[in-house]
């Protein structure tokens, strides 16, 4: 028979063949787990000399071989004779990336990967730390198959595991667990340096233990902890990044000169007449139009006007933005951690300080985070853990950003850099004279605003954990865990009299009568403040039973209850006539309706802001999870869970949601018949189960929403009816089936994990078509079913293993979905929804277009098909009731269906280079184009540069699709073209986004144990290949790409 010793590293003290083995382990006593088959533990003895305990055991006579095995190490089989030859010293080799050494944390238990039946990925610390970025989640990009970021909103906060499982964007995110409890706070408050590793629970068997909130997968973040029996160790990290300014010229638009030509054209057509003659609201009139008007009225000589206009032609506001609004950003991250562990306790303390100086001038953030963990084992039976985390972040946001409603030839500063006024809200020729010199300056100087704004947000978070484990009896233990967290945000926006908003409001509430001025709104600044607070309590009791019953049976199970209570409160308020030095505010009459100055607006009372809101989240859960392994070859698991939350007005039947999962696993390589020399490991797994999504924001009964203010005219309380009744509201359900294989080849040089999954999400809350006559545009109900299929692939290879090493990790994923049930007919191509128009039998994020039939050869007008005939009847071509789904062209998904990420790393003598090549395939995007209706109106935005490529003369239709200019413009003509297939681009591309170079010299110093210096270049935006011929970067489409950043980092360990 075989004897299995699971010991780290040990010295054999004496061995007598066939009789008795004595050994001493070099493992710290507490961390040591020794598993002996029961038959061998008979006669097991233990005594202590002055060093470490010595263990001894009797070996059955017929035993010739001993197998030494330890998690994280290569196993070794030795005969007793061989052991004697080695002078009794057996050392196991460290194993890299093998399934058995991976410990997965599910938030409820920590189990070795071989005992899980689910699809689980672990992002190890060394991979996580090689990523740069201040965000905890950002660093996950490209580290796990099936984890993707939806970048349609231009930032990387929307991440999904295995695609979308819900149609409600607010809940379309994985559940994040920090150590033991769901984390609902601001993830940015966590310092990424505090993170040890991240487990991704992807399928039902893995995630179902989290039940009703696990429908979108689960990310379990494990933070760094101290360890027992360790001398003091110090780690110090510093990173400094320099971030480029964004490329403001990325999005193509016409030049200032063309914009001015268009203004001259429109002026001649009389488009500005209404604005020029408007003597009530006095809308902005651009300088060119003012000049043209002056010439027309004979107040200005034409040559002078032309000279002035020609000067305007050379200005481009984007240059001013680049110069005065932006700068190079500098981010710094500094981190120091200290840890030590004794026999009965350990302790870790970490302090982080981040300073982000944004690319937007006058915006920055400072963040301090402190984290400490203690573990205490007063006796063998009891273990107590405590944790405390505090973070403090102060952000200034004083940059107004790029201005809206401004003409493209405006200037922010004069030749000497002095701030210039730009037109805002009212016509300058009006405000310059109307105040008779009595009003406050009514002009808007954006650069002054940047310098004088005071807009700050302070966020403070505290999280306190306490937990105890009591070992009751042979593998039976009892856990109690409690977490308290409090997040407080204080936002303050002080707008002094020097700022436009304040001056404008004071002016509007001013009255000039007989040459004297009265203020109905006190002079002085305006202080807006809002405070929010979120307090959560989470409490769990759990009974665990983990035991090896004989050498054949292993059981891991748990049973528990969880309570969760979160209360959020917020208050928004405002003070007028505020003096920031004296901290004084003035009394204001909020009741009287005051006339607006010169009737620019209708009479109004002083805007009153004082609003309190609160929300609450309650959840109760019961859960069970059990796993059983037989001979370490066959593992079965099952979980069951019941959740309830405070869904509003729901029948009790629908309030509770029972969920379950089952899974199985076969470790083929443990079988006796398994003899494949080039294959080290082969594992087959499968699982099926249900998890859920909860959306507390949708009530089941008709509710009203009281307004915090009185009605403006009658001054009475009032409310809005806010939803249609929905008595059948219930939880969304995600059923998932997964089959997977894990294999390693050629002595672990190649490892492969492949999973296929099939998810059916039912009862999805979706908008249903409503007859508008009911008073509703749509009904929000559990009415959708989405079927998702996908494949996740992880292939890790060590290609070259000599003095230089080349490792390549390929992550690939495929994800495709289809709406199987949806009570909605397509209403509009631009539904304005995040999940762009879903139609039955098409993917949730589908792109459809009108069918473009080329340009009219005589007029350059875009053409489509109505009833199979060429048509320019744009109403019929775009009317929601006339255009049917079959008239549209389906292009595919707007989110990538295939992802591939190849992470190459080369090592040579302490130098390491890392290049991340990523590809996204199987999706499309729609690019912007010229909108004549917008261009040929009094609007101020510069038109899209497609204008230059428009059809102008017959024959142009052969080389352009861009319609001719038509005056007056037809919005539906623009819309037809914009939403036709002519503006669709394939988004498939391969890019190199990040590169890093690191150096870790061999340290001979007594004090410094390790040093690592690293240089990163992020957001290279280097496109290796793309399918579209368009110049736009498919990852960002028409949004300005994230700018490149350079980071220098160092890491010391003492």
């Amino acid at each position: 028979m075989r004897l299995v010793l699971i010991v780290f590293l040990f010295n054999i003290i004496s061995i007598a063949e066939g009789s008795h083995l004595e050994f001493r382990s070099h493992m710290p006593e507490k961390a040591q787990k020794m598993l002996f088959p029961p038959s061998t533990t008979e006669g097991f003895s233990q005594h202590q000399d002055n060093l470490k305990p010595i263990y001894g055991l009797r070996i059955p006579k017929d035993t010739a071989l001993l197998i030494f095995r330890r998690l994280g190490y290569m196993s070794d089989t030795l005969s007793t004779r061989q052991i004697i030859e080695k002078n009794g010293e057996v050392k196991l080799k460290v194993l890299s990336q093998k399934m058995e050494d991976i410990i997965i944390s599910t938030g409820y238990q920590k189990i070795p990967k071989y005992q899980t039946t689910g699809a689980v990925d672990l992002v190890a610390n060394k991979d996580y730390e090689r990523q740069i970025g201040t965000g905890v989640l950002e660093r996950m990009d490209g580290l796990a198959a099936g984890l993707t970021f939806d970048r349609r909103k231009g930032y990387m906060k929307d991440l999904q595991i295995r695609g979308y499982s819900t149609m409600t964007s607010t809940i379309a995110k994985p559940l994040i667990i920090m150590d033991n409890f769901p984390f609902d706070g601001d993830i940015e408050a966590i310092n990424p340096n505090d993170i040890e590793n991240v487990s991704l629970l992807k399928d039902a068997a893995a995630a179902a233990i989290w039940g009703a909130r696990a429908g979108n997968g689960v990310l379990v973040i494990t933070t760094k902890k101290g360890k027992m029996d360790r001398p003091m160790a110090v780690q110090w990290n510093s990173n400094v990044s320099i971030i480029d300014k964004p490329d403001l010229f990325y999005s193509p638009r016409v030049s200032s000169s063309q914009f001015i030509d268009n203004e001259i054209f429109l002026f001649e057509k009389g488009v500005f007449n209404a604005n020029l003659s408007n003597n009530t609201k006095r809308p902005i009139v651009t300088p060119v139009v003012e000049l043209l008007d002056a010439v027309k009225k004979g107040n200005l000589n034409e040559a002078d006007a032309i000279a002035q206009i020609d000067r305007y032609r050379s200005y481009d506001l984007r240059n001013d933005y680049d110069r005065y609004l932006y700068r190079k950003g500098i981010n710094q991250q500094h981190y120091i951690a200290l840890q030590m562990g004794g026999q009965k306790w350990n302790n870790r303390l970490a302090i982080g300080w981040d300073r982000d100086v944004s690319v937007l001038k006058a915006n920055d953030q400072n963040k301090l985070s402190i984290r400490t963990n203690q573990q205490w084992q007063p006796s063998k039976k009891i273990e107590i853990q405590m944790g405390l985390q505090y973070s403090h972040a102060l952000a200034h946001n004083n940059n107004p950003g790029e201005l809206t409603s401004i003409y493209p030839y405006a200037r922010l500063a004069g030749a000497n850099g002095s701030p210039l006024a730009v037109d805002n809200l009212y016509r300058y020729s009006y405000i310059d004279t109307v105040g008779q010199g009595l009003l406050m300056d009514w002009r808007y100087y954006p650069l002054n605003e940047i310098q004088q704004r005071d807009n700050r947000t302070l966020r403070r978070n505290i999280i306190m954990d306490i937990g105890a484990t009591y070992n009751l009896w042979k593998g039976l233990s009892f856990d109690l865990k409690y977490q308290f967290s409090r997040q407080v945000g204080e936002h303050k926006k002080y707008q002094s009299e020097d700022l436009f908003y304040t001056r404008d409001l004071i002016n509007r509430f001013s009255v000039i009568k007989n040459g004297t001025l009265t203020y109905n709104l006190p002079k002085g600044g305006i202080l807006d403040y809002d405070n929010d607070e979120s307090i959560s309590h989470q409490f769990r009791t759990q009974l665990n039973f983990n035991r090896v019953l004989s050498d054949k049976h292993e059981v891991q199970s748990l049973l528990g209850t969880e309570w969760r209570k979160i209360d959020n409160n917020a208050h928004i308020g405002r003070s007028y006539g505020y003096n920031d030095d004296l901290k004084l505010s003035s009394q204001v009459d909020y009741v009287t309706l005051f006339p607006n100055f010169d009737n620019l607006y209708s009479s109004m009372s002083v805007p009153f802001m004082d609003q309190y809101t609160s929300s609450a989240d309650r959840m109760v859960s019961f859960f069970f999870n059990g796993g059983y392994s037989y001979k370490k070859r066959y593992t079965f698991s099952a979980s069951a869970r019941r959740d309830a939350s405070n869904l509003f007005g729901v029948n009790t039947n629908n309030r509770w949601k029972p969920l379950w999962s089952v899974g199985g696993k076969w470790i083929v390589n443990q079988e006796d018949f398994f003899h494949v020399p080039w294959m080290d490991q082969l594992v087959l797994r499968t699982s099926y189960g249900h998890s859920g999504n909860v959306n507390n924001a949708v009530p089941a009964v008709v509710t009203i929403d009281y307004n915090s203010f009185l009605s403006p005219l009658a001054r009475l309380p009032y409310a809005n009816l806010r939803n249609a009744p929905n008595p059948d509201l219930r939880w969304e359900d995600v059923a998932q089936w997964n089959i997977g294989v894990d294999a390693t080849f050629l002595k672990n040089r190649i490892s492969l994990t492949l999973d296929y999954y099939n998810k059916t999400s039912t009862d999805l809350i979706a908008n249903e078509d409503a007859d508008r006559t009911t008073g509703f545009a749509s009904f929000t109900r559990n009415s959708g079913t989405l079927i998702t299929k996908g494949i996740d692939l992880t292939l890790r290879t060590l290609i070259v293993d000599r003095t230089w090493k080349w490792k390549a990790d390929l992550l690939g994923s495929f994800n495709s979905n289809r709406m199987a049930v949806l009570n909605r007919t397509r209403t509009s191509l631009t539904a304005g929804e995040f999940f762009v128009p879903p139609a039955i039998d098409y993917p949730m994020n589908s792109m459809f277009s009108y069918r473009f039939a080329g340009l009219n050869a005589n007029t350059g007008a875009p053409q489509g098909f109505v009833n199979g005939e060429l048509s320019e009847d744009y109403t019929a071509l775009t009317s929601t009731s006339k255009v049917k789904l079959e008239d549209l062209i389906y292009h595919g998904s707007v989110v990538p269906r295939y992802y591939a990420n190849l992470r190459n790393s080369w090592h040579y003598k302490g130098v390491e280079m890392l290049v991340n090549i990523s590809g996204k395939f199987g999706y499309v995007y729609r690019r912007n184009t010229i909108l004549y209706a917008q261009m040929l109106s009094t609007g101020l935005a510069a038109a899209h540069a497609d204008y230059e490529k428009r059809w102008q003369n017959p024959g142009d239709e052969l080389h352009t699709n861009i319609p001719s200019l038509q005056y007056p413009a037809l919005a539906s003509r623009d819309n037809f073209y914009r939403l036709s297939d002519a503006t669709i681009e394939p988004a498939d591309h391969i890019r190199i986004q990040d590169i890093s170079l690191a150096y870790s010299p061999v340290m001979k110093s007594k004090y410094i144990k390790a040093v690592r210096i690293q240089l990163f270049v992020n957001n290279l935006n280097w496109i290796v290949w793309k399918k579209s011929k368009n110049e736009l970067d498919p990852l960002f489409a028409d949004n300005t790409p994230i700018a490149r950043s350079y980071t220098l980092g160092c890491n010391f360990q003492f």
Partner: protein
Amino acid sequence: MNRIIILLACVGVLGLSSCNGFLDVKPDSSLALVKTVDDYLAIVQNETRMNANYPFSYDYASDFFYLSEQNIDALDETGRYAYLWIAEPCHANNWNQNYVRIYDTNVVLQGIDHAELGNRTESDRKMAKGLAAFSKGFTLMQLAALYAPPYERGNNMGKLGIPIRPSANIEEKSVRPSLDDCYKEMERLLIMASNLLPEYTKAKTISNQEAAWAALARFYLVTQNYEKAFAYADSCLQFNGELIDYNLLDPMASGTQFPILNKEVVFHATKGDFSGISSSSRAVVDNLLYNKYAVDDLRKSLFYRKNVDGVVGFYGSYDGNVSSAVFSGIARDEIYLIAAECAARLGKLDTAVDRINALREKRIAKGSFTVYNSKDPDNVLRFVLEERERELSFRAGIRWMDLRRLNLEERFKKKIIRSYKGKVYTLEPNDVRYTFKIPDEIVSIGKLEQNQ
């Protein structure tokens, strides 16, 4: 010891089952069930939903103004369709926003009888119900002027009204009742409101009995029931006949002379305006209409101002807004005119002349005012109708309702004409285009019958 702990653990794990109270907490503090009379009142006191966004497209199609070619160009398409009487559905918001109001009022009408009284009284319950009935009836009347064919007394066979949504049940299908049934429902609602509403309310956004009577007067005028229209108009004027004396207003003052909720307003409401057509700087008063004001008519200088480009715009809206005419409620001058018109039609010439003089006295410059008198019923009626144009043209929907109504009488038939880009557009009396098309998506999803 161990056993105690095992026991405790089991209790801890399993003993947390009584938690329904814990789960009954509201997820959002602003969420409230509609339970008490206060809650129902809060629904009908919502000014955004009860007093704003009344229909507007009829004013695009009426004859009291015109647009310059540039301003027609600048219109969006639906605005252009309405302005040039192109038989395409115009802005869906006419329908959508007004049926939101009808849903709100249905919730109140359905639940108010069983609402908890709280610290309110039964008269508050009556008021809430009356307000809902008023809003629903008034809204249906305005909507019918757009989407239902003109009501012709005694000759409505085969004509379809607009959906009346009898309950708040959203599962119920929308149907178009007969035109008669539709108007009967409006009548029922407005009479119910007049019986429930108090004499006085806190503000003119909250309709009172007078407002219900005034709405009934308008309703009976539209349905050509002149006896009842006269009776309700007369009740109103006996209750309160106060008018603004335009002699006391200053035409040179900047801003508006007619503040919001002024004393002539009986019920305050505003219409939606999506293509900006009602803007004072765009809509130019029709020349014929402008010429109907005598030199000493104070309205000429108080209602109209010359814009910078030389054309004349309307600045006399009764909602305190100078830049656009969006008042869509009822003011007392209209009641005088209804009383006068009905009296003239009913042969009560003295009363008719008396009412019209009472109004004109406050509109014509002191000193130049002369008492109008005539014994010829046709003359009196024509004079009243002309006065009606001078007084009410820019009030939402009134002119359109008048055109639809008066075209039924041979003597008042009017063809209206517009031109755009050299093309002449005409709207013949009783043209099918006097009934707007229902928005496409309503027809397709609600499966309603479209107008011709």
